[in-house]
């Protein structure tokens, strides 16, 4: 179904972090941007579609002052808003927002760090663009910061802080089907496996809370009102977002899931885990019976590699890219 293409070499290897691959397709310029985190640096590659041009750039995590040691980056993700595309980088010290090519940093938000070290780590993690003009970022305390983003310029402001989760945020996702009919706009996940479903607005509204089983939900997606969540148990669960009804459960992987992605036009689902396997599934929603069918389509094994990022490169799922811990390349696969 898929075959391996030529990999893109990166300046350094990918770190073992959840959802460690960002992909942004720029159709007018026939380019795709990739972003991969390595310790305190984000490696960006711009790849032309004809496979001839590659340009690289590295972004550093912001160090507040020289007295402290380097700040590790936890995630780098592209946020697509109607008016603009941005790259958001979360780290131990705060949140950096760049223009999508990484050329200019347009905003910096410092996390509140206590004067004396607490027994819990402090960091930001979990990034999602939401609806018209919001970017939401999670924090290790469980808070979610909602930033209001103007259509251009750097006047980004913190609009709201959502305090619903009590455990570290792991991932967040917004409704990606493009449908205006969906009630839920955003889902957030935490280290306890708890999922919160939100409606965006001047004040975000909590629509539903789906309780976890004390097992981290490391990656989450929202498509046509269905939450797709990947867990440390290697399982994938599909829930109806607003009601929390379980649609399906898959014993998908033998180790911790690190990344999920959905191709919204085709309903293809990608799952990747520490067990070195990437799996492609198809989700079939039947609104009449309010059920979801999950069909397995394809497996790819990246030998001896704990996969940390996997994303489709286009909305149909024609191609996807994968990163692995200690690997200095972005591996690509295309439909045969």
């Amino acid at each position, binding site marked *: 179904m898929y075959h391996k293409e030529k990999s893109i070499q990166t300046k350094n290897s990918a*770190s073992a972090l959840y959802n460690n691959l960002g992909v942004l397709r720029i159709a007018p310029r026939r380019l795709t941007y990739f972003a991969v985190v390595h310790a305190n640096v984000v490696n960006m590659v711009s790849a032309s579609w004809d496979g001839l041009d590659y340009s690289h750039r590295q972004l550093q995590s912001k160090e507040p002052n020289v007295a402290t*040691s380097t700040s*590790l980056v936890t995630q780098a993700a592209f946020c697509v808003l109607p008016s603009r595309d941005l790259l958001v980088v979360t780290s131990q010290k705060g949140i950096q927002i760049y223009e999508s090519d990484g050329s200019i940093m347009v905003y910096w938000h410092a996390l509140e760090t206590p004067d004396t*070290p607490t027994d819990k780590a402090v960091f930001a993690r979990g990034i999602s663009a939401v609806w018209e003009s919001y970017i939401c970022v999670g924090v290790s305390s469980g808070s979610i910061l909602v930033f209001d983003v103007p259509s251009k310029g750097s006047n980004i402001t913190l609009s709201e802080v959502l305090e619903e989760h009590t455990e570290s945020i792991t991932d967040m996702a917004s409704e990606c089907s493009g449908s205006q009919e969906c009630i839920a706009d955003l889902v957030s996940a935490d280290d306890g496996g708890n999922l919160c479903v939100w409606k965006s607005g001047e004040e975000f509204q909590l629509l539903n809370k789906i309780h976890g089983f004390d097992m981290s939900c490391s990656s989450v997606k929202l498509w046509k009102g269905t939450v797709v969540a990947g867990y440390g148990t290697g399982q994938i669960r599909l829930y109806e977002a607003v009601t929390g009804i379980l649609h399906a459960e898959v014993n998908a992987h033998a180790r911790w899931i690190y990344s999920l992605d959905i191709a919204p036009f085709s309903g293809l689902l990608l799952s990747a885990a520490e067990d070195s396997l990437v799996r492609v599934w198809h989700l079939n929603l039947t609104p009449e019976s309010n059920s979801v069918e999950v069909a*397995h389509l394809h497996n790819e094994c990246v030998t001896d590699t704990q996969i940390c990022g996997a994303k489709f490169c286009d909305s149909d799922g024609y191609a996807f890219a994968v990163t692995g*811990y200690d690997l200095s390349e972005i591996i690509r696969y295309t439909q045969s």
Partner: protein
Amino acid sequence: MSVRTLPLVFINLGGEMIYILDQRLRASNTSDDNSEKVMNDIVGTMFSKAFIDELLKPQQLYSHRTLKTVLTRLAHASIMRLNPASMERLYELMVMAFKYQVFLCPRPKDLLLISYNHIDTIREFVKDTPVVVNQVDETHRKIIEVYSSLSEGEFQLLRQTLLIFFQDMHVRVSLFLKNQVQRPTGRFALSTSGPVPHGIEVPGLIRTCNSKGREVRRSEFPTGGSYSSPVREGCFELHGDRVTRLGRNMYTLSHPEETRTSKAPSVKTSDAPNLLAKEELNLLARLMGSMKAENKTKVEAGFQINLFTTDQEEEEAGDPSGAEDSMSGVINIQAMQDEQAATELARIAGQFTEQEEPENPYCNKGDDLLAMMDDL
């Protein structure tokens, strides 16, 4: 990221160090008295209340350089002496062993079982000295107390922090190559068959529910691997069967040449900055201060430990001008690599003993500490 890494780092790296030293002591026919003394001194210092209490404070994991400094001081808490090149080799072995254990750790929580395997074996080494055994038991109890409340998510964060710390290290260890847990490229072998970790379902099942959330259908999919049911869970108490073999002493049955290392072909140079940030220097000061005073009687019973099989190799390794490293026991693909390995080793050995002045204006105590590091 995680602020709880240091105790596990020192127990596991220190544990690996003790395994290797034990093997070298036996291989070089050191007297039982001397061996016991070395073990007791090192274990006693490592598990001293002051040191462990410092480690247990929530703090970041800093650089390899700081870790190396503290571990060298630990090794020198005994009457044994290691030259910088030997320490470098020892550090590589220790780190690669721990990286292997962390990489293959079935569940993040099993990092504790790996640590307990190290503690169990260390306890055996010092079993004839009740004072030291007590220290080990006390430490073990404290570890159980602190870590039993961590969630799986927090353990995974801890594991991820360790993996980032070990990133890009692909030193090939002849024992690992021989046992085929490491490939010639330096990467560890990851199997897609065998028992799944405890608490994980064997992959292959899709359960579909109706609109009420009730299961109505089951189907299977091909997993591309051959997984089986999990084995029983290891014991997290003070004593018990840990079940996992990770963290146990791999060097007991092997021959000395199996502690040989060589750098993998595409070795990445360390990106660690030469400066030590103020936070890191503070940690270093606290850790060094909390260890028992170094045994100053170097004149009497002190002896040099040989990490290599022949005197000639020991001489060459001790010579920082980079004589050729003979690695006949290790699988080498091209002769070129030996040259690279030798020059790389020499460069690192030289860096470790270099007199460096910190440019950081915030550190005035820094000068003393850096000088102290270089004297080791």
